[in-house]
């Protein structure tokens, strides 16, 4: 279960605030995954006191609304990433960035499909630069794209381009994963699926033996 409470002293009317909060949730908490199980209790409550003295925001398309939306996105993404970083048994945070999709929503869906893949998560834990699993998870996300446009990078190492695997320095790629695991750092997976305007991100963590151990014993 994830829970969140967000507060601000900006002055914003109820309709706009409720839309903003949902947009931010879609760009943050709805883009994280640890185990693919959606809880019975997930909740985010967001309160705006209006005590900052800022002007009242009553239109979601005005400049001030965009400024507040950007701050809200940042706070929720910061918190969401820390949840994925603290996934049960995790040794590293996985950040999947997808570009070139037709829309933000489609890019986000591909990103979370990859971040959710147990095989990708296990490969990261095994320090295995497994481009095939990344490609497969992108491919079953339910979002059409030309497979010959698929490009995959692990950190700054190009694994796949134009839908074809490349020869790459395997030990360098594996070391990239190992180093991230040693410092509980971040593994970056960068995927391009074409030249569309849409980009999105998702966050997850690697799948370790500890996850099974923790959840075999935490009984309901």
């Amino acid at each position, binding site marked *: 279960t994830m829970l969140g*409470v*967000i507060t601000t002293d900006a002055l914003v009317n109820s309709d706009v605030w409720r839309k903003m909060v949902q947009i931010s949730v879609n760009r943050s*908490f709805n883009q*994280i995954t640890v185990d693919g199980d959606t809880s019975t209790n997930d909740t985010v409550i967001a309160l705006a006191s209006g005590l900052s003295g800022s002007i009242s925001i009553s239109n979601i398309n005005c400049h*001030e609304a965009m400024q507040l939306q950007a701050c809200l996105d940042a706070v929720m993404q910061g*918190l969401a990433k*820390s949840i994925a*970083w603290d*996934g049960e048994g995790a040794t590293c945070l996985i950040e999947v960035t997808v570009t070139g999709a037709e829309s933000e929503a489609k890019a986000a869906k591909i990103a979370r499909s990859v971040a959710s893949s147990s095989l990708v998560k296990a490969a990261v834990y095994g320090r295995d630069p497994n481009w095939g699993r990344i490609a497969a998870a992108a491919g079953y996300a339910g979002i059409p794209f030309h497979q010959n446009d698929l490009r995959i990078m692990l950190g700054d190492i190009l694994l796949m381009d134009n839908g074809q695997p490349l020869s790459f320095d395997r030990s360098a790629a594996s070391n990239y994963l190992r180093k991230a695991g040693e410092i509980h750092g971040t593994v970056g997976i960068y995927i391009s699926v074409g030249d569309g305007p849409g980009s999105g991100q998702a966050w997850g963590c690697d799948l370790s033996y500890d996850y099974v151990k923790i959840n075999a014993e935490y009984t309901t």
Partner: protein
Amino acid sequence: VAASSSSSMSEASNYIPAAPIFLPEGPWQQIPGGVTAAKGFKAAGIYGGLRAKGEKPDLALVTCDVDATAAGAFTTNMVAAAPVLYCKNALDISKTARAVLINAGQANAATGDAGYQDVLESAGALAMLLKLKPEEVLIESTGIIGQRIKKGALLNSLPKLVNSLSPSIEGAGSAAVAITTTDLVSKSVAVESQVGGTNIKVGGMAKGSGMIHPNMA
């Protein structure tokens, strides 16, 4: 009393380490404080005897000095917990809220009418203490599915929780610890930026480590 409650707040807020927070780049700077950074908010986290094991703080409260514009996003899981159903109803009734009460230890999910009544009773008791309308109190619960909240312990702890409220960094930190379950770290962050030329603050706290694949709407 104030001195002892602030030392216990600081103790509570350090019960587990704080998570590294990966804030995206942008026209803001990170400031301390979490949910209490923004003007008008207070928070507290205490041990209320709700957890099955250990004495980590397990009851948190965030309040606003004024009617705050309120929004919520909730799990779309069909087996929605009692606090989720309650909050949806409360936000349908009221556009504003003044308090969020969070318990860790029992999810109060799959607990039927009795579980829902527990939520109503908790919200009502806190509303009376804070002199609010019940629908201005929102509730979040996390923990073991199928278990009702330890209502007696919760209700008995409310006066101490309310007395512990503070606009301080420790208040926010203790609340961020109190909402955790299997988390190894607490999650809390705040930023300061400008909206229309006026300084504003946005802050927040979160918990989560297992059963994580949110689809909130």
